[in-house]
């Protein structure tokens, strides 16, 4: 069962190296079988090598984590605030685990994104690197930590957020920025479109425009030059985390946001196909955010989703009238899992419920199952009933998983 497991990420040479490293026959099977890269672990379900997205509850929702060699699509919310946060979490997790990073943006220099990475809460020791970092960070925090109940201080608090039983990934404090030394220790390649593409050649025979072509070339170059394609010896293997911001927006020179039948309808999808080809043959994992609400043609958006492996849509309440609704007072927005990949097996991890919501606490982004607040008093409920009915309707349209019934059932 374990044999075909991580064949997706690099296949041939890896397996040979694995057999070579098995010198004695008496070895614990579960651990020694996999190449151990910090921050990765084999998936419980199909043995695929997975990494954390940085948000523990998101890992749980998409079935344990992101498989190496796959692509996660995030459909941006209206102001790109929460999707940007997820991208930062994803990159910060890479910094903490010692992975290499690749950041591409057309809107702002990637260094700005890098400077805003959230600070990790390092209460456990995951890797030697984070141990050192904890030494630096630990002193100011140690002052106000509990002295009496010291054995309990590392226990997780009672949490409503979704999480798997075993710990994977780290927690972050979004109110603080990451330590500069830690950030600079990370190996990061950045791609800022205005710097890379200076002239646009109109006579281009390919489907992709100049920006996408340059980006694909640059990603390919990063993968080859840093040896993520399996050319390096097994000992120094590492994972490349690729974060691409707001693909498909007009800043990338794409016109799918501008008209319903754009001239380069296949530009983004062709790029994603090329990116998928790159990812599948290397030790890398990518997160792409797309302003889906701006894409005019739904058909194009569906094709984009199908070319990504995991797809998630964020819908924030900010600026909507639903924000004031009592039903939603605990949450900041809805989260919809659009697609979960089938990797090396017929079935995929199916969630119990697709009604999910996210909220941003003071320090942390979490995803929870959406549930209605309890109906406590008679009068209040009568007052707010039409209100709730209205929002229940909105909810069903937002999550798309319940019956598209228009009538509210009044018991």
């Amino acid at each position, binding site marked *: 069962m374990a044999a*075909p*497991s991580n*064949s*997706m990420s690099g*296949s041939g040479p890896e397996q040979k190296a694995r057999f070579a490293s098995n010198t004695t026959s008496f070895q614990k099977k579960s651990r020694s079988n996999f190449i151990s890269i910090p921050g990765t672990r084999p998936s419980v379900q199909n043995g695929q090598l997975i990494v954390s997205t940085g948000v523990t509850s998101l890992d749980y929702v998409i079935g344990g984590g992101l498989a190496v060699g796959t692509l996660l699509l995030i459909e941006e919310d209206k102001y790109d605030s929460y999707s940007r946060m997820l991208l930062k979490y994803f990159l910060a997790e890479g910094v903490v685990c010692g992975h290499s990073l690749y950041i591409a943006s057309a809107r702002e220099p990637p260094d700005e994104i890098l400077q805003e990475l959230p600070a990790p809460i390092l209460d456990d020791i995951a890797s030697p690197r984070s141990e050192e970092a904890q030494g630096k960070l630990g002193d100011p925090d140690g002052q106000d930590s509990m002295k009496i109940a010291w054995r309990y201080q590392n226990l997780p608090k009672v949490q409503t957020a979704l999480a798997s039983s075993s710990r994977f990934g780290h927690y972050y404090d979004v109110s603080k920025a990451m330590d500069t030394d830690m950030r600079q220790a990370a190996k990061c390649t950045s791609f800022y479109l205005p710097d890379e593409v200076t002239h646009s050649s109109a006579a281009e*025979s*390919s*489907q*992709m425009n100049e920006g996408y*072509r340059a980006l*694909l*070339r640059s990603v*390919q170059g990063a993968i080859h030059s840093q040896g993520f394609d399996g050319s390096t010896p097994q000992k120094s293997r590492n994972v490349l985390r690729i974060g691409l911001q707001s693909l498909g927006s007009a800043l990338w020179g794409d016109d799918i946001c501008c008209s*319903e*039948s754009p001239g380069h*309808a*296949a530009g983004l*999808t*062709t790029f994603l*196909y*090329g990116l*998928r*080809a*790159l990812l*599948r*043959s290397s030790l890398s994992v990518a997160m792409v955010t797309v302003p889906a609400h701006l894409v005019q*043609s*739904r*058909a194009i958006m*569906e*094709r984009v989703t*199908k*070319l990504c492996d995991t797809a998630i849509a964020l819908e924030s309440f900010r600026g909507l009238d639903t924000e004031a609704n009592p039903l939603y007072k605990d949450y900041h927005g809805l989260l919809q899992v659009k697609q979960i990949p*089938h*990797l*090396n*097996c*017929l*079935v995929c991890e*199916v*969630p*119990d419920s*697709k009604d999910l919501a996210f909220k941003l606490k003071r320090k942390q982004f979490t995803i929870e199952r959406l549930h209605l607040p309890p109906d406590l008093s008679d009068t209040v409920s009568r007052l707010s009933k039409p209100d709730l009915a209205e929002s229940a309707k909105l909810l069903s349209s937002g999550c798309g*998983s*319940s*019956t598209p019934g228009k009538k509210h059932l009044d018991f």
Partner: protein
Amino acid sequence: MFSELDSILDISPENCPQREFILLSDRKADASFLIHYFLSFYLRAGCKVCFLGLVQSFSHYSAVSQRLGVSLTQAREKGQLVFLEGLKGALAVLLEEEPSPSPQKLAFLRSPHTNLRGLYEFVQGSLMAKGEGDKWGPPVLIVDDLTVFLSLGVRGGAVLDFTHYCRAFVCSKLQGNVVMLIRGEEEESDEEGSEWLLKGLTHQCSLALRVEGLPTGYCRDIHGQMEVFRRVNGSCVGGPKTQKNLFQYKVHDKGASFFARGTSSAVL
């Protein structure tokens, strides 16, 4: 395994029908399990198979087939399977500076308004080639999936041409079978979109398996429903008729179970 699907379709590896054009389609669900079913079925039946795998890597198909009891690597070495891995050759074609003069099988990736002629010639060449006599059964062409062509900017008309050529070559000339998957879109899109293509192909096919999500919404124990349309060339006066059946299904680790509507073990 897929024994239930065998009996629904009334086929078995010993009794493999010929000249069928099987169309798989899905909407709000994933029909790729049917691709794996047909791939392992035809390999078990001893057919010569040409597989155009455009969406996933070879190792993915290989790992799933392993669970279904068929080894793709062995079949490839024996010459029974010709596997085109679209993702492998794609990058070189996408990023090359100068388009090569000779027509290639993946040339459609490169230029926008091209046809799929190179790919058809590849299919023709791989199914015509006879290595060691007539060792294998009727040839089979499997495509996973046609929607990728549209995503890569090939016109719907060109895709329809390609399927028509393939059907004429494989089904009529070589007495073989063709299986194609197309992923539907929820909304009717522009001209020559996926829905348009689906209509055109439904018109041609002899057997259509249409997979959909449940109309009542998401359920953990029932993954969706499958409609089976079969064109029956009856001898009665009424001429050709279509049979239609509807099943609900659940995909397992090593196969799928099919049941009549509302008779899921989770419900009863």
